[in-house]
């Protein structure tokens, strides 16, 4: 075997503790080491994915105590898929911000890269862990890094956005802790698989209450309406790459936790309907809000929330096809949203207020960036040859299989809204006259690479969707196979 899943957590932590020491010797190392760590983890993730495809899930036991007693990490097709995605996004964000931060002094740069690495590590931990309380700890790691990254710029509004985030986040973690305690007080265990196998013994009222607490708490972190008060501000005020990291990394991990609770741990029949209702509300309200925004990043943030709503609805369908569609949308969102954030933040780079109207006529000044932005916009609304089309199609097919006509109609209506506001922006970029005297900023070399890679992936998924559907199908199957998950965890022993 090449390595074990625990290295996903241990190596970045070791590096994070080492960086202050290395920084005293060689200052450039604070930028390079996180990247090297992420590259190594990417290699590890890919090789473990290959291993899992042939030999089945890997259950990592920690401290030598088999699952109900100790903490364990689960690396199967589903978690592996998400981990690979998260680390890949982390790597791109690192690459993008590597030179972006070169004008920043040593101290903040060191902190920025440590925080970024810990954001990735925390999210990876959330996805991998098989223990409820450990999940809480990793959520806290992720959110503290996120608070600090939101407030990274010393402008006046970023601290406010971050404060809002801290408020919501710590109330959410209080609720999460109460829910964990309710489960423990009844079942006497904290292991996810163990809880899942015993949940039918739990008092129904308590079960419902703790489920609702989980949904609310994780909903705050996964920007689900009406708990997403923090999200647009945090996206808009955080540095460009961090906004992309939120969309591509943090939200994915939190959504994973929510899904894990709904699908594996709880056996409530009403849970799926709850997901559909929440998802639809999120979707409709976020898209309507997005069309009213006058700042580019806020518009993207609301669009991101809307996409999360769509994912929730897809998960709420509750069939294998639904899960497939949800994962496909998540994948596309994780690739397209960062592309939009990266290129968008260059388009409004010199504009003080970051209004959408400031990008009029950018198409001539910065053709490459504008083209990529347009590509992202086309892809996310689901125009045929691009990536978003296939995920939306699979979603509609899954909904149609279950005769959810109303939902299909609603989704199509919302898609039109989405098309309207994205096309408005694209229209402004290419066909409006430049009104402000602001110049375009040339992207750095690394930013070019990152955006091109993302653009190529979008095109690749668009033209050859088969390259990814296999992995997604395997991931969906492994999420669905609840008994196998429980069995493989509870019978795990030291290799």
């Amino acid at each position, binding site marked *: 075997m090449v390595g074990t899943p625990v290295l996903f957590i241990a190596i970045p932590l070791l590096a994070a503790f080492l960086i202050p020491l290395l920084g005293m010797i060689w200052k450039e190392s604070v930028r390079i080491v996180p990247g090297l760590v992420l590259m190594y983890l990417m290699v590890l993730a890919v090789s473990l994915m290959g291993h899992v495809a042939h030999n089945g899930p890997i259950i990592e036991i920690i401290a030598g105590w088999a699952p109900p007693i100790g903490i364990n990490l689960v690396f199967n097709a589903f978690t592996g898929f998400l981990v690979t995605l998260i680390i890949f996004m982390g790597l791109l964000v690192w690459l993008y911000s590597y030179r972006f931060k070169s004008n920043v002094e040593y101290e903040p740069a060191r902190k920025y890269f440590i925080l970024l690495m810990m954001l990735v590590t925390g999210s990876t931990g959330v996805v991998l862990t098989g223990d409820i309380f450990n999940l809480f700890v990793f959520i806290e790691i992720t959110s503290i890094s996120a608070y*600090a990254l939101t407030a990274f710029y010393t402008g006046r509004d970023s601290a406010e956005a971050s404060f809002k985030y801290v408020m919501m986040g710590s109330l959410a973690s209080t609720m999460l802790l109460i829910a964990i305690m309710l489960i423990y007080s009844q079942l006497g*265990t904290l292991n996810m698989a163990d809880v899942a196998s015993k949940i039918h013994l739990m008092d129904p*009222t308590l079960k419902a*209450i703790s489920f609702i607490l989980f949904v609310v708490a994780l909903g705050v972190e996964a920007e689900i309406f009406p708990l997403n008060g923090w999200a647009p501000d945090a996206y808009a005020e955080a540095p460009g790459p961090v906004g992309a990291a939120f969309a591509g990394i943090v939200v994915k991990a939190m959504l994973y936790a929510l899904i894990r609770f709904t699908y594996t741990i709880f056996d409530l029949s009403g849970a799926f309907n709850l997901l559909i209702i929440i998802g639809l509300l999120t979707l409709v309200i976020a898209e309507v809000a997005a069309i009213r925004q006058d700042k580019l990043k806020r518009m993207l943030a609301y669009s991101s929330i809307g996409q999360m709503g769509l994912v929730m609805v897809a998960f709420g369908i509750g069939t294998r096809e639904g899960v497939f569609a949800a994962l496909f949308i998540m994948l596309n969102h994780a690739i397209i949203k960062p592309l939009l954030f990266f290129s968008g933040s260059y388009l409004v780079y010199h504009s003080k207020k970051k209004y959408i109207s400031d990008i009029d006529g950018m198409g001539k000044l910065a053709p490459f960036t504008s083209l990529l932005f347009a590509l992202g916009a086309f892809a996310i609304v689901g125009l045929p040859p691009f990536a978003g089309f296939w995920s939306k199609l699979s979603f509609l097919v899954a909904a149609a299989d279950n005769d959810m006509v109303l939902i299909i109609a609603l989704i199509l209506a919302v898609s039109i809204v989405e098309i309207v506001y994205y096309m408005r922006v694209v229209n402004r970029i290419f066909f409006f006259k430049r009104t402000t005297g602001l110049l375009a900023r040339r992207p750095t070399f690394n930013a070019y690479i990152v955006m091109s890679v993302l653009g190529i992936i979008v095109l690749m998924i668009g033209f050859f969707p088969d390259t990814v559907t296999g992995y997604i199908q395997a991931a969906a199957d492994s999420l669905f196979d609840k008994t196998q998950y429980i069995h493989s965890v509870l019978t795990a022993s030291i*290799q």
Partner: protein
Amino acid sequence: MKKVLVILLLAVVGFYLADVFIGIGFGNDHFVKSDEIKPVKDIYLQQTVENLKVSNAVTSIVVNFRGFDTLGEVTVLFLSVTALGSILYRKRHHAGDRSVLFSASSIVTAGSKLLFPPILLLGAYVFIHGHLSPGGGFQGGVIIATGFLLMLLAYENYTVSHNALSIVESFAGITFAVIGLMGFMNGGTFLQNFLPVGTLNDLFSGGIIPIIYIAVGFKVAAELTGVIYTVLNEKGDQKNG
């Protein structure tokens, strides 16, 4: 009438929460009665004595059974120091421009000087004996940090070297992670004990538990001192009251 609305909402939430917890009951076995349920706490208590030879069950859980949580927790503290530094960072650094809480009299300064070594000693005692008596890395680390806090408050120009803090912090953190990785020796798992456990109630017992707790103690002490130091050096632009 926002206040009334909020109070009403809170009353409803509180009622349900109280209802749930009173239903669970206080001071009795609250786990569901069933053959399938074997609360892990019983296993913990049993294994603590039999296999780990550690007196303090809380320590054995924090450091061994759920050592991964502790690693995460130490990371949270590390992150909050980093976050503090990043949030409060500004370009011009006013060195020695510290906010003074009160001007200390000579009694206070002399007293602090006198108390400082015993506090450090107490902290060290608490974390070295973490596996035998109440206390451990966190508690001992916090006690040491309060010692530094006392000195920082009593002496206006008492400084702690930032580099020294981060060296201590890094080394302690690396120790924790490396001991964790050393668990892989002999085909074990992350954080697995690889040292002989000794006998119950001895100072040298419990395998890697005391070592990890000492590392945690140093790390927590360095981190909390760092938190206080960073905040203390942050003088507001304008003072009021």
